[in-house]
């Protein structure tokens, strides 16, 4: 028994000791691996890889497919085992801290220094004066609205200056008038995600900060959300979660006249309308409703960026940096806009994206797309992931009516203090 155990241990040590062989070649063509997800329906990775190959014929980008919903779980395992690709995506900011703090990202400050000033979403990737990832997409939340339903109900279209108060009033008015005209559609649809209330609250309230552990700023936003629900101007949270309602169907099948959502939905809606999965109707986007009227609408969303695996060879890291610079640049921006994706460089994309077949090209939509102050949904800090989990519980407790707003906020503050911030 003892002897066989020792033999097995020796065997294990032997396999543990053997590392992966490095690549010896230091000239000639080079292949970089790039992580992506749902490759068949998410063309952005291939678009970038092909576009990059146009200017760098020596560097081939090979795509590695990950699961869209479990991307970070798979990537964590791959990084831990030393099997991760050379370039991988920071899908949101919540996990960026984990990768950066876990030393799984190479320093790309030199790439960042050469970027144009119109590239949005770079700041969150800067920690301790260095840059650890480069954004290539930078969406932001806007208000989608169904022009046909607005006209049917005889309600004025959003003019770009709406507050939450004005938005709620419109939602209620739409609901009543649409019902009178025989339509089943409700005034608005705020999806079941915590961000539909909390993202706006954090971005728009002066002085609101996640790590402060003080969540009083959430109150007016939940009052609005619950108000809409009680008035019947929006599907109740319980019915939406239990019936797995999707925001694509709620807006695309004209179940709701308005919907706050990220700009990524533009591409989805266009393709669903073209395929017939969504109804055909005229729609537009308006700036997200505000707490108080402001010159530049304040909204939120996390950028999506590329980071480099520091375990790659030096030569690959150098090639990967070229790729990152390309992905954030104006050429890539145009290519991405062509497939409906909002690139980090918003300004150079607006003419392409809003000119796509079926996309709205009115003044308010252009304003909504170009002019906004986009704050991160998950400000980078070691407390963000656990605090967002605490706030997710708060969200489901309030929205399901299990707890009154004040009690839920007090409980979340207590939990934040004792479980997260005091560590």
């Amino acid at each position, binding site marked *: 028994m003892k002897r066989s155990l020792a033999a097995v241990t020796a065997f294990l040590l032997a396999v543990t000791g053997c590392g992966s062989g490095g690549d010896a070649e230091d000239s000639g063509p080079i292949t970089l691996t790039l992580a992506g997800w749902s490759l068949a329906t998410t063309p952005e990775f291939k678009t970038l890889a092909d576009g990059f190959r146009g200017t760098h014929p020596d560097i081939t980008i090979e795509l590695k*497919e990950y699961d869209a919903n*479990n991307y970070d779980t798979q990537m964590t395992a791959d990084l831990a*085992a030393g099997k991760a690709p050379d370039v991988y995506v920071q899908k949101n900011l919540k996990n960026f801290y984990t990768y950066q703090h876990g030393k799984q990202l190479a320093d790309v400050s030199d790439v960042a220094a050469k970027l144009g000033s119109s590239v949005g979403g770079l700041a969150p990737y800067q920690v301790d004066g260095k840059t650890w990832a480069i954004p290539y997409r930078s969406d932001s939340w806007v208000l989608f609205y169904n022009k046909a339903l607005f006209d049917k109900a005889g309600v004025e279209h959003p003019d770009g200056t709406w507050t939450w108060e004005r938005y709620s009033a419109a939602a209620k008015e739409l609901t009543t008038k649409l019902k009178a005209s025989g339509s089943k559609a409700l005034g608005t649809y705020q999806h079941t995600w915590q961000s539909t209330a909390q993202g706006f609250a954090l971005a728009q309230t002066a002085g609101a900060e996640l790590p402060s552990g003080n969540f009083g700023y959430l109150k007016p936003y939940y009052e609005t959300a619950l108000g809409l629900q009680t008035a019947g101007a929006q599907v109740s949270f319980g019915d939406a979660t239990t019936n797995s309602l999707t925001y694509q169907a709620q807006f695309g099948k004209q179940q709701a006249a308005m919907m706050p959502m990220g700009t990524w939905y533009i591409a989805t809606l266009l393709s669903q309308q073209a395929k017939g999965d969504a109804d055909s109707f005229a729609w537009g986007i308006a700036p997200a409703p505000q707490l108080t009227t402001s010159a530049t609408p304040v909204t939120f969303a996390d950028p999506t960026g590329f980071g480099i695996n520091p375990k790659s060879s030096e030569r690959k890291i150098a090639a990967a940096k070229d790729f990152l610079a390309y992905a954030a640049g104006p050429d890539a921006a145009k290519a991405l806009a062509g497939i409906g994706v909002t690139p980090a460089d918003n300004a150079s994309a607006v003419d392409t994206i809003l000119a796509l077949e079926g996309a709205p090209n009115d003044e308010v939509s252009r304003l909504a797309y170009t002019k906004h102050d986009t704050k991160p949904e998950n400000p980078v800090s070691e407390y963000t992931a656990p605090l967002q989990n605490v706030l997710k519980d708060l969200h489901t407790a309030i929205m399901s009516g299990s707890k009154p707003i004040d009690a839920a906020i007090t409980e979340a503050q207590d939990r934040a203090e004792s479980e997260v911030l005091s560590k």
Partner: protein
Amino acid sequence: MTTLSRPIPVVLRPTTPRRSRSWRLLGYLALAAASAGVLLPFYWMVMSSLKTNNDVFTLPVEWIAADPVWSNYADIWAKSDMTTWLGNTVLLSATVTFLQVFTGSFAAYGFAKIRFPGRDALFLAYIGTLAVPWQSYMVPQFVMMSKLQLTDTLWSIVALQAFGALGVFMMKQFYETVPDELLDAARIDGMSEYGIYRRIMLPLSAPALASLALITLVTTWNDYLGPLLYLRSPDLWTIQLGLKSFISQYNAEHALIMTGSVLSVLPIVVIFLAGQRYFVEGIATTGLKG
């Protein structure tokens, strides 16, 4: 318990004719009603698989697909790589089931019928690992598999599923019901332990082997997290992994989720129908003196 025990004598012994017919009819009616209740969700699944995506979740619920979309089945077959996934899954399920049943019952014989020092401690270690949630050790396990160069091969899933403690535990419990006198008699006749295992234990344990095989098969067939973590190349995907990633590609295609679920359940149903006939009173007990 009391309510359950009442019909037992009646159906077990159809020789009491007076009450038996009406009881039997009542029993069937109750069974049919219960079956309908159990199958209702599956009915809804089939109906949803025949709807368009945006019609699956509606308020209020639609119980009948007014305009069945049979093309969902053709679509999922055409757009996805179903044949590859099915092939991989069948291969994996068969290999894992064979290994689990063989090594599990083999080891269980050692645990149940041979006395040697350290046996009970070792057995406790087996059971102990059942009590540890997989998600807490899956990363160390992944790193280990990666060192053995097993990740992204079908072998990783075989390794993951085939040597679990469940089979050992289950077969051991079963073997303990076989009286020692029977084995001692065989030993006196000069049969080796391996002979006893093969000639006496295996034939006696057909029902237990059948249920272990079925359970292992279903677990391997339906496993999602294992393949998700270990299989990255699309040509290695199993049916669950393939279907889920197919579905997540086509954002919110709920009708297709249901189509896929129906398709992945059907083969198991067939196998179960075939396998359940091993649970007939008498098979195990023939030749056994209690």
